[in-house]
């Protein structure tokens, strides 16, 4: 078994990298893959709380790198999925405690045992980002439909190409279809036109993400959630399936379909 290393990054903070990492981990593991998620945001650990595993941490990434524990000892098994694991970040150290070479060595060790090694990158373009992309086979860039987030995504695309880790794929997160339709939010088409990058997912802004994060149970576990569905679709695309991008039209139901029939091509 030779696992693939998937790095989730963005440049800008707060766009949903950690949420995407947790949900792709859950979605891929639910589909039968063996998955380990690594929190590379040293000093600002958060993937543990999004996955609901914060009470089980004993060792962390820096303990592995500095030889205080074996890799297996730092891996926390998920509560719900037997083939999902977390390697948490250290909370009291900084990004210089780990080097890109350490990350490559760790990822290579994990490849033998896992199908997917998902790395949650910190925001920024410095050491933490370099650590996160060093072992990557596939890079996903998360952005939001905002000028600042798309600008940072563009910068990151350039850096990933310079490191020969490209071409990266784009996840547009927190899309509000109603605002896009009204002309008050950048559409996915607008963003793709500006960035010239392949799209792998469109995730709607969804209150169920907040609820699931409150509970420490990623939304991809919730079959009724639209955001959860979007993350599961990304996981299927990562597995090579052709999955059509859902139109994020919120006018669901009879009236919605009717209005689309009456006014074709009106939506985003």
């Amino acid at each position, binding site marked *: 078994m030779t696992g693939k290393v998937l790095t989730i990054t963005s440049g800008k903070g707060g766009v949903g990298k950690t949420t995407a990492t947790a949900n792709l981990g859950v979605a891929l593991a639910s589909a039968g893959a063996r998955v380990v998620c690594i929190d590379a945001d040293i000093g600002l650990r958060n993937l543990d709380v999004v996955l609901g595993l914060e009470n089980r941490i004993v060792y962390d990434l820096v303990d592995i790198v500095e030889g205080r524990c074996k890799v297996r000892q730092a891996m926390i098994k998920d509560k719900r999925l037997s083939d999902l694991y977390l390697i948490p970040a250290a909370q009291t150290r900084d990004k210089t405690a780990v080097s890109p070479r350490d990350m490559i060595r760790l990822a290579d060790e994990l490849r033998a045992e896992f199908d997917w090694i998902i790395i949650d990158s910190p925001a920024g373009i410095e050491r933490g980002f370099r650590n996160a992309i060093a072992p990557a086979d596939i890079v996903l860039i998360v952005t939001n439909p905002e*000028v600042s987030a798309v600008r940072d995504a563009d910068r990151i695309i350039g850096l990933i190409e310079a490191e020969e880790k490209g071409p990266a794929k784009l996840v547009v997160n927190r899309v509000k279809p109603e605002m896009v339709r*009204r002309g*008050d*939010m950048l559409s996915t088409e607008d963003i793709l036109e500006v960035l*010239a990058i392949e799209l792998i997912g469109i995730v709607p802004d969804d209150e169920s993400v907040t609820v699931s994060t409150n509970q420490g149970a990623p939304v991809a576990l919730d079959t009724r959630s639209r955001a959860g569905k979007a993350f599961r679709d990304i996981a299927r695309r990562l597995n090579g399936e052709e999955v059509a991008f859902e139109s994020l039209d919120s006018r669901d139901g009879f009236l919605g379909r009717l209005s689309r029939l009456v006014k074709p091509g009106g939506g985003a």
Partner: protein
Amino acid sequence: MKLFGWIRGGGQSARTAKERLQLVLVHDRADLSPGKLAALKDDLIAVLSKHIEIDIRAVHVELTRERDRQRLVADIPLAPPRARRREAS
């Protein structure tokens, strides 16, 4: 509040966002800020003016973006012939 936001947005703000984004990316990608571009334009005018008389106020220098190539486009109109002749005599 919601109504106020709707009136201000007016269904046009996405277009504004896209235009601002395209402009800022053109400058980011070339690593040439609008201020540096203005300085470049001034230098360009100074050099060209040594050789030919140009209509300084009508000069346009801008960065443009095609599919995968960026371009520095300068539109440099010459001074009207009458003005040139007058100064020559």
